């Protein structure tokens, strides 16, 4: 039964691996025969890749909205909503939705009253505040009487959902899991329900959970703290500079009303691509999928941000003095993924960082023996908008961030002054092809890629056509781009300098100013 999938992938693979240059139309056609793309009347796009074999499928729901779309003053909202999307709907997770809905409205009113008092700049009445808090807690308890906790995920897991999770990036929000193929319709019901019919259930306790996630990822992690400050320093206007999980004061005051408004604006058909890969036959399954996902509201695609990060003209740097071991990172502003030079940045990253032959490894780790690890890469913190090409190095004991910086700059200078070798460029191209092929092996990985490319280019085929751009990269391109981008005035750097804290110093708990 694997014969079917065997033939198309082998054909494609040969075309990519053996024929230098682009895929010919024929091969793409053979791939196309197994992929069905359907845009529903509400604008939602389904991409289905039929890959029989094991009786399983994987899916990725790709929402073209992430932390950059958090409204001002509400950082962390996209991520908060992602958590809410696991809390169920008017049908699942409740014993009595009409009554719960009324109770949730009271929770919202109680929270509003509490926050209004909390935020009073002068004349805040602490006694009243405590009372309002009691009312809020009681309202939550009243609403919780109708909740069947975690029923949505419980039903998914009991039906074999595997690697169930979701991620909120700066650019997008993704939901994904794998399941036995005989649960396809059940999955379609679950997934379309939560996209179309999210309710603000248990929002405020989930907000506490997200605050714990923030403590884990950022506040209690030395590099987490550094990177948050680094990005905030590198960007002056674009929300790429904002904490994706949210500034403590903001994320701790997000309301369910705000989360639902985010949902109404961004969780509409035209902003959603769902890719399914596995033992799913579009011929028989598409009508069922159309029925369920047709329930998602339609509407015009929300407009992208107007803010464009202004050109940086002054070098910036920050130093974090911390008890943890030293670390160095620097970043240079580069254009978005749609830039014609996108593949050139990939080539630079590959030649500098990929494997033991890479220049940064050979230079800093092997020859100079000053770093444990060193690399350069694009796409920090996202790639939909102009982002950073970053370099980092982890010093060996006894070596300093300043040494990392100097050594990295030497490698950058080499890139600017001398062409890379033919062998290096050929290696990049070979590895790009092989990596693409290797990525086809995994249902979940392929679903992610198809959904992402369909969203970002309007056509999943770009996943394969990308190789055209890879092939066109020249040595001159690499020098040109390096000279253009890796200049002092375009640089932001950050480092950890190891230093014991002064006696009596404590961490930031309690200084976050949240509404808890």
């Amino acid at each position, binding site marked *: 039964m694997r014969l079917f999938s065997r033939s198309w992938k*082998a054909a494609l*693979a*040969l075309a990519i*691996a053996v024929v230098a240059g682009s895929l010919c139309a024929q091969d793409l056609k053979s791939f196309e025969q197994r992929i069905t793309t359907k845009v529903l009347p509400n604008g939602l796009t389904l991409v289905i890749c039929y890959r029989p074999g094991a*009786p*399983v499928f994987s899916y990725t729901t790709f929402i073209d909205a992430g932390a950059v779309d958090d409204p001002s003053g509400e950082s962390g909202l996209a991520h908060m909503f992602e958590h809410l999307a*696991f809390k169920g709907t008017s049908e699942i997770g409740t*014993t*009595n939705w009409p009554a719960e809905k009324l109770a949730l409205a009271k929770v919202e009113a109680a929270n509003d009253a509490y926050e209004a008092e909390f935020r009073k700049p002068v004349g805040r009445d602490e006694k009243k505040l405590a009372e309002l808090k009691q009312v809020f*807690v009681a309202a939550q*308890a009243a609403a*919780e009487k109708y*909740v*069947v*906790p975690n029923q949505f*995920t*419980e039903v998914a*897991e*009991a*039906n*074999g*959902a595997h*690697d169930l999770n979701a991620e909120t990036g700066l650019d997008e929000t993704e939901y994904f899991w794998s399941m*036995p*193929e*005989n649960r396809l*319709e*059940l999955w379609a*019901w679950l997934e379309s329900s939560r996209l179309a019919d999210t309710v603000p259930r248990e929002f405020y*306790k989930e*907000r506490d*959970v997200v605050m*714990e996630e923030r*403590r*884990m990822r950022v506040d*209690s*992690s*030395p590099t987490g703290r550094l990177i948050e400050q680094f990005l905030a320093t590198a960007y002056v206007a674009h929300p790429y500079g904002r904490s994706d999980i949210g500034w403590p004061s903001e994320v701790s005051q997000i309301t369910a009303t705000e989360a639902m408004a985010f949902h109404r604006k961004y969780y509409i058909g035209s902003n959603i691509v769902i890719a399914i890969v596995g033992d799913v036959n579009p011929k028989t399954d598409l009508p069922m999928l159309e029925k369920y996902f047709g329930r998602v509201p339609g509407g015009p695609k929300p407009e992208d941000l107007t803010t464009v990060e202004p050109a940086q003209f002054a070098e910036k740097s920050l130093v974090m003095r911390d*008890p943890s*071991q030293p670390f160095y990172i620097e970043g240079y502003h580069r254009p978005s993924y749609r830039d014609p030079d996108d593949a050139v940045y990939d080539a630079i990253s590959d030649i500098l960082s990929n*494997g*033991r*032959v890479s220049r940064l490894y050979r230079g800093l780790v092997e*020859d*100079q*023996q*000053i770093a*444990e690890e060193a690399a350069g890469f694009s796409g920090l913190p996202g790639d939909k908008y102009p982002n950073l090409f970053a370099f980092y190095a982890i010093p*060996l*004991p006894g070596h300093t961030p300043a040494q990392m910086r100097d050594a990295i700059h030497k490698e950058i200078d080499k890139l600017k002054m001398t062409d890379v070798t033919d062998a290096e460029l050929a*290696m990049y191209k*070979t*590895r790009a092809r*092989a*990596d693409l*092929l290797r990525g086809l*092996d995994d249902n979940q990985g392929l679903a992610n890629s198809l959904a992402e490319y369909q969203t970002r280019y309007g056509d999943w085929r770009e996943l394969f056509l990308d190789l055209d751009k890879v092939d066109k990269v020249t040595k001159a391109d690499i020098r040109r781009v390096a000279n253009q981008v890796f200049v002092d005035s375009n640089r932001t750097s950050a480092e950890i300098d190891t230093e014991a804290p002064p006696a009596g110093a*404590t*961490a*930031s708990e309690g200084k976050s100013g949240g509404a808890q």
Partner: protein
Amino acid sequence: MSRLPSCMISVGVALFATTSPILFPQQAKPWEQIPVPPLHAFKPQQPKRIELKNGIVVFLQEDHELPFIAGNVLIPGGSRDEDPSKTGLVGLYGQAWRTSGTAQMNGDAMDDLLEAKAAHIETDGDDDSTSIAWDSLKGDADQVFSLAMDLLFHPKFDAEKLELARQQEDSAIARRNDDEGAIAEREAAKLVYGPASPYTRQPEFSTIGAVTVADLDAWHERTIKGRLIVGISGDFDPVAMEAKVRSVFEALPPVTPEPPRHDAFAGPAPGVYFIDKEDVDQSNVAIVALGIDRHNPDVPTLAVMNEILGGGFASRLFQKIRTELGLAYAVDGGFGLEYDHPGTFEVNLMTKSVSTVDATRHAEEEIAGLNTRPFTQTELDRAKDDILNSFLFRYDTPDKVLDERERLEFYGYPADYLETYRAAVEKVTLANLAAAAKKYIHPETMAVLVVGNGPEIKPGLDTLGQGAVKAIDITIPKPQQASNSTTEKQQ
């Protein structure tokens, strides 16, 4: 936030009663109306197993989906078998083996050759084995296989590459107290197995400083005579591949099995242990005890209990500590099931400093509750559904089947272990669960480890009422003398 209104408790109870038609008479469950047709027939493809006369076992797993061929050789003997005064030897060996290369081709030249072909050969050192693995496009497979075999049998360990590996390890030692989660994981295991146990002792500057090239040679010479397990998968002709593998491995002398280990596993000394970390605002809590290994017939029952206690969104720990109380983002736990030695029982959570004691108490209650709060049929059904309906994902690709077969072979388990295990999970009863909880869950023997910010933890850990809090010192021992580890290449 740490308050626990009584109505919230009733919510918890209601969860387990959702199937009761009396409580929710009007509740229609649309998802239960959706048909679940029979699963498409599927028989996972098993690799061909070849046992050579010398005892070496080969698995060949054909997979023509993509034009790649991959292979690996598993070699018994790992860090648990190394000389304690040279702790870290196997870790250094795993790195320096590949980076050194062979007499015919040194590691750097191998890097150049392989990377140009988007191919890989890597070596690794683990606690019970070392290994070599390779993969490449089909067209390069013969050359890559020859190289891998040259490296497998004829490494030429190089002093400079050992030095490079040592520097990496030095850096890891120097950084090992930076990450709170890593500290908790490491120290929790030490509480269970003991700090000097072969499973938990840690490399120090002095122990890795003592490792020489001669040690690496000796390690290779000893372990390469062991009962190797070879696995190859991908787009190859099975007849030709078998001939090729036989030509390499068949001529070797009979294998020398790794001597059996006789480790003692005492389990933790009960009590509360604390590690102070000034730069965090969240506590890492681990509640630990000694667990069991997979030979134990109670494993299927404990796997179901794991699911009920800490497996996923519907588990008792997640429902209580995350969903109901909002005290943690990360909370989970259960019995770790090892193949040839007892694993650890562990419940982990992370919570803000001020709720450390509160969250720990709730976790302890859930553990104790395994004996006092009867398991329900709903819990049992759900846990079994979770395990059985996702069971498919243990063997849904040819590579996963191959990995599993190699693992079973390595630890001496029957080839049909997964099927037997699955059948046993299906048969687990409420009585089995209750009996297993009684047999294995003994809160009074458990240790509680907290890594967190001392001054911020209020109330203090002494209020847990488990005696005086024992501080654990994690200061990293300084290198004993001026390092002999500089090389002429250093600048």
